[in-house]
């Protein structure tokens, strides 16, 4: 009773899931990310915070090579997932993205049924041998997305007919359907109301048991609530990276202090 833990702040594992070394990103001549070195832990929620244009989303998108689709974007340095260079020529970006899933700011369900939204990924990656297995994956994913009870009787209805918060949880369920190892979330709650936000945050905390979650957020309170590790970006630099409780009570860098106390925007 006396040594009952506070809200779980520490992580049981310290395994490094993603390791970034001397990462530079250029958009044409614009040096957007400068010398970023960071080790992202497994089974941990890591929050990226920083003012607009600081590079946090750009860096997040490097982690599953979403920047490949931008012609003028160049990524230098090394990013390893479980010790393997994800920018190696032999790596298929599509396979990489099955392992490193992503959820975006605006819920973007496919214009298909709720069932097919989830089944799409497992089908193209051949994760189910038959209909029964696929049904199982769909149910498991929707349960992980904390939306099963709300949609189980209307799986054939279009995903776009759900409310905003439900759509976002559907997208999270879709992202976890391919059994990724890392889940990247770019402002997943900024289009949601406070109740839906709380549901997604609760979901993120549950997902931590199985995945490494990296979340970009403009809400410092959200970063403080959901993450165990926080990284502060400013003008393309990773200024400070550490335990979330430490960052929000006693940060080391004056720029971090200024940002989290609302002194620079």
């Amino acid at each position, binding site marked *: 009773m006396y040594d009952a833990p506070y809200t779980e702040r520490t992580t049981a594992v310290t395994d490094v899931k993603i390791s970034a070394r001397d990462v530079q990103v250029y958009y044409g001549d614009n040096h957007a990310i400068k010398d970023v070195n960071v080790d992202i832990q497994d089974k941990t929620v890591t929050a990226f915070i920083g003012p607009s244009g600081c590079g946090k989303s750009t860096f997040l998108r490097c982690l599953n090579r979403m920047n490949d689709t931008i012609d003028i974007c160049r990524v230098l340095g090394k990013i390893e997932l479980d010790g393997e260079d994800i920018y190696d020529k032999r790596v298929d970006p599509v396979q990489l993205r099955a392992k490193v899933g992503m959820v975006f700011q605006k819920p973007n369900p496919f214009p298909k049924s709720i069932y097919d939204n989830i089944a799409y990924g497992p089908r193209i990656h051949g994760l189910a041998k038959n209909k029964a297995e696929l049904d199982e994956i769909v149910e498991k994913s929707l349960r992980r997305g904390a939306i099963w009870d709300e949609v189980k009787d209307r799986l054939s209805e279009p995903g776009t007919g759900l409310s905003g918060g439900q759509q976002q949880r559907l997208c999270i369920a879709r992202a976890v359907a391919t059994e990724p190892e890392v889940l990247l979330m770019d402002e997943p709650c900024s289009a949601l109301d406070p109740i839906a936000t709380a549901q997604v945050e609760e979901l993120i905390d549950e997902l931590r048991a199985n995945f490494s979650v990296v979340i970009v957020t403009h809400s410092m309170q959200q970063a403080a609530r959901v993450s165990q590790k926080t990284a502060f970006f400013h003008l393309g630099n990773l200024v400070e990276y550490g335990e979330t409780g430490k960052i929000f009570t006693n*940060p080391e860098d004056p720029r971090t202090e*200024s940002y989290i*106390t609302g002194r620079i925007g």
Partner: protein
Amino acid sequence: MRQHIASAFDRDLEGIQAQIMKMGGLVEASIRDSITSLADRDEDLAERVRAGDKAIDALEETLNDEAARVIALRAPAASDLRVVLSVMRIAANLERIGDLTKNIAKRTGVLVHMPPVGGTGSSLKRMAREVELMLKDALDAYIQRDQALARDVIERDLDVDQMYNAMFREFLTFMLEDTRSITPCMHLHFIAKNIERMGDHATSIAEQVIYLVSGELPDEARPKSDSVASVGVDERGAGPGPEAEG
């Protein structure tokens, strides 16, 4: 440090810090007045000290309300959070010092009707003066975010402890020499103990200054000289009394 983007936040934080200074001023005066009332055998002044404690208590309540409001509305982080937390703790320390001065005034009300004992008045006054200075410096250190001054205050608590130890022995001697002096000496001893406790509260305020500036409380390595608690039966057969009530 630069201003917040939300300037109302700056006003809130300045507001609670101004309140702490106001409360500190009242408490310093209360220390001075309580000990003056004892030295001058001034019952009216003692009565004013007792009445004045209400204002100190009221300020603490206001401060806690304001601090709770800032936490709820502004969600302060990092140094802002430490300002709010330290303000609440310092307010509690000041309130306790206020209670101790009130207790001194109460005992003064009794002592003025008894014959004076020895030359203990000036020792008590010197000790109270030292504690008042410690408090003043701790509050200055707070406003100036001066860690060095705060450390100095923490060091000086040792002197106060030693003064108290010396007085304890002095009172013991008086009581052994003349049993009729036991009642006034017990009151005087509690007064000395109260002043010693005020020194501890001033020290605690100084520690909050270090917490506010550095984010960490100082190590528990400060000098201590509480020899009274270990005075044994073989020596004089007396131990320290219970702590003063408010």
